[in-house]
């Protein structure tokens, strides 16, 4: 296959739309390292939908968790500084009137959005933060932080369905939302107790959606640093339940959920020898697969629990 053909295959973008809508995008530290495949697949599927996600220049780590005390501002400086970069992109003319900022990682999304909400509700705090960051431009509050899933919802699931080349027929996927996309209410992308956004996406991809009553239950988050056992137990509960409900694999949108659900299966099996490994995939990997993109984009070789045998069994991979 020639390079041209190769390109045509992996990039079914209409030539007229070769330059898609440019939207600033915040990767977050883990997407540049351990979750590289999440970024790669997301950027490519976005292109297929006519969106060019432009990496925010000079972005810094958002902090991953929101500081919750009333008097602490220093931990909100990082996310606000990132939001300043979005406004800078507009003033510098790198993008035109585009104040949306797309995040992929649930934690980044949560922190950026809550920081924005907090300073918008407390102008005094914004003033202090702006003052501390006197080397930067002031944050004007124009940015609207979006999770990639929200962007997909805005694009419309019917459109996504049209882009699908290889429907994920027969693949039983259980969506896992975790916490930070849904809670608290003011920063949620969907109903905190009964989210549907991933189900709608998976249905558009042609997969069979398996509802897991524990889809919003916490994976243990940062407790994984000091309490592996507790996290493994939660992973065991979540994945076992998904299997009971009939799922083949689980999909998520957070690198930390991914680590806890996938990497910690090792600890699960030490405690529960009967536990059979279950593949956990980023939703963008499944999108890439359904869009007919190359396996190097899908990056299944980088998943801790190799999904390829399952995909082959379902006739979705060679």
């Amino acid at each position: 296959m020639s390079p041209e053909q190769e390109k045509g295959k992996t990039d079914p973008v209409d030539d007229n739309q070769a330059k898609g809508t440019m939207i600033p995008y915040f990767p977050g530290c883990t997407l540049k390292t351990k979750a590289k495949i999440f970024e790669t697949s997301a950027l490519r599927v976005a292109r297929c939908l006519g969106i060019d996600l432009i990496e925010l220049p000079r972005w810094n780590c958002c902090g991953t968790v929101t500081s919750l005390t009333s008097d602490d501002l220093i931990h909100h400086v990082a996310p606000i500084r990132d939001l300043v970069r979005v406004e800078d992109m507009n003033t510098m003319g790198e993008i035109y009137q585009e104040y949306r900022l797309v995040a992929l990682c649930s934690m980044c999304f949560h922190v950026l959005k809550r920081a924005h909400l907090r300073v918008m509700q407390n102008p005094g705090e914004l003033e202090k933060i702006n003052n501390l960051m006197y080397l930067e431009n002031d944050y004007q509050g124009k940015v609207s932080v979006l999770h990639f899933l929200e962007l997909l919802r805005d694009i419309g699931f019917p459109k996504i369905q049209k882009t699908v080349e290889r429907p994920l027929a027969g693949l039983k996927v259980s969506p896992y939302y975790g916490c930070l996309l849904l809670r608290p209410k003011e920063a949620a992308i969907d109903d905190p107790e009964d989210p549907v956004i991933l189900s709608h996406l998976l249905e558009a991809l042609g997969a069979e959606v398996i509802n897991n009553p524990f889809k919003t239950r916490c994976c243990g988050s940062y407790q994984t640093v000091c309490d592996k056992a507790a996290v493994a137990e939660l992973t065991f509960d979540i994945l076992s339940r998904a299997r009971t409900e009939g799922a083949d694999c689980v999909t998520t949108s957070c690198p930390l959920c991914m680590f806890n659900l996938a990497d910690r299966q090792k600890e699960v099996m030490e405690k529960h020898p009967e536990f059979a490994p279950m593949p956990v995939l980023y939703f963008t990997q499944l999108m890439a697969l359904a869009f007919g993109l190359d396996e190097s984009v899908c990056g299944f070789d980088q998943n801790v629990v190799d999904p390829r045998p399952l995909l082959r069994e379902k006739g979705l991979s060679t």
Partner: protein
Amino acid sequence: MKRTGVYVCHCGGNISEVVDVKRVAESVGGQPDVVLAKTHEHMCSETGQNLVIHDIKEHRLDRVVIAACSPQFQGPTFKATLEKAGLSPYVLEMANIREQCAWPHFGFPEEATKKAMSLVGMAVAKVRLDEFLKKMTFPIGRRVLVIGGGIAGIQASLDLGDAGFNVYLVEKDPSIGGKMMQLSRTFPTEDCAACILSPKMADVAANRNIHMLTYSEIENIEGYLGHYEVTVKKKPTYVDPDKCTCCGDCVGVCPAVVPNELEEGLLSRKAIYLPSPIAVPHAYVLDAEACLGLLPIACGKCKEVCDPGAVDFSMRPELVRFTVDTIIVATGYDIFDAGQKKVYGFGKYENVVTALDMERMVVHSAEGNPMRPMGKRIAFIQCVGSRDEQVGNEACSRICCMYATKLSQLLKRSDPSRDIYVFYTDLRAYGKGFEEYYKRAQGDGVKFIRGRPAELVEDPKTKKITLRAEDTLSRNIIESEFDLVVLSVGLRPNEGTDIIAKLLRLGKSPDGFLQEAHPKFRPVDTLTDGVFLAGTVQGPKDIPDTVAQASAASSRAIRLMNRGEYDVDPVTAFVHVESCDGCGLCVDRCPSQAISLVANVAVINEALCKGCGSCIAHCPKDALDLHCYTNDQMLAQVQAALTDKKDTDVRTLIFADDMTGYRLADNVGTAKMSYSFDSRIIRVPSCSRVTPKLMLQAFVFGADGIILCESEKNSNPYPHSVPTIMSHVSKAKDILGQVDIEQDRIHFVQFVTVMLAGFVNNINRLSEIARSLGPIPAGPLRRLSQDMDKKLFGGDHDS
């Protein structure tokens, strides 16, 4: 020279602990027409009132100022006092130094005292110009509309009907009976609900004074106390109730099956059905929406089998119009939509039901034909949709504790091998016999666990429900499986109530139920004259409370109607004939069509005039005026409010409408919420009475800012007033702009009586604005006072 007596009340310390009442009394002593100024411990007591009567006679007083609580509270008392002493009740003014001084400024005695002096000064200035008016009297008939045919509406109708009043009872369902008809037994006595209700329903049907309109909805209500014009839309039942023998043959042949409302959808019914075995009127109904087709007839089988020929497809909706004198609103409640509480999976899990479902299941089990298996392990979850900010209802629904106690006992007693758990947060057994009933349930072995379950999860195979809760008494997490989980759903305002509330301009309390006129002393009255509340439309309550309130509402209605006439304050517009040049500008502007031109002079029809005062602004000659709130009086109050203002002071005037603004200020005071001392509240019937001229004059006399506080449009007794005020305000602002005075000095805000914080914020904000703007410079003020009349009516006269 007028002879005014001023009385400053201690209010048993309520006022005197903050305000130096003695200084307040002394402060007006110097005014030429103030004959005496006294203080008293309790002005509203008999000794206080006698003091006034004595002084009126002894000192030949012809004007009285009482500085005490809000006129909303004791105004009627003191009016009666003046009448007893042979004076017109309208030469009384009250200075509200409790709600507007002592309470909101309780931490600042000096400021409160100064403000009190100012308020008394304003009252003295106004009372000087009071006229010797008489009460107006209007005739009233004996017709009542009762909206809602539940137990509240039934009880109210029976009381009124028995007392000889004519009742129109309007019910939206095909049968009266309401929610009570669905219940199994009533707590704590365990009477069979249907058994005690059905005789009352039959009484309604039998009462010749009660005209029942079932399957009917209110289309429109217009008018006022003594003359409410009602339009009701009666839906066709397609079955002639007089011919129907209730044989049930039609049901057998009807092919259309829909969920049965009486059974909460747990059972089905046909399109043609008997609403309930105890339905009143007792006749079949054909549900047009469920029927396969009436126009044209698609099936018609029911008509074919009906021997008496009761089925009549030619029936059409009917508009019924009638006039009543008073109205009782008894539209009841809906149960909370349990599907909203998503963690409990109602609607998703087949073994999660509401308590009302359970009532029906218990009824059918008792009759020996259970609807569905109930299992051995049953859990009740309390406070579903109540006391829960996550679903937007902070209030307690009051009845759930006891109905769960009742249902759990009934279930346990009918099968003692059942394991029944009630998960509660607080168990409230406050009523007569309730605590004993709760104890009995505990004795019967029902287990009460103090903890609110967080989530329910269904087993995909067995369909059993796993419940997770903390036993907060032992601090353990309980995770157990149940065969059935019952959600004790709370009470929410009935959806249909909204329309009625809008038509009758009724306010809502924060919980969404309708607001009574006073929580303590007028619990069934509303702020709309002649409209009363009965039952759960006012808030959750059990059956005895509902019945008691229904009787109270009917008695309040009877009190109004029984005399054959009622009194109103003579707040009507009048014309200064000598000034009127017959231009007629006012005629079209009156929303009640109360003004006409007779012999080239404007004449007011007092029966039609509602006293809003909105016409006054339209007269270029200042010939229109309003009794009790005359132009001179308004100006005198404004001047008095500004006389003690120092150069460094900021002074804002708050015009507050009687319906909402003034009551809101009272509520703020009662809540002891503090606001700026700079403000002086001036009561008006509606802010549409505040003319642009008055606003501008206020600035000339030294005001720094003005707020007009008016009832929000939907609860305003004068529906036209909001646009009128807007045009007045924009006119005044225009002129301010022309003379370079900041337009931000005038604010217009719409309120409902619960917006306490909003009221305070607006007052404080205006003070801040005025402070930051600084005093109005002399130049613009001079120009304003010189050109005011020209600017106000220049345009109008040209056109």
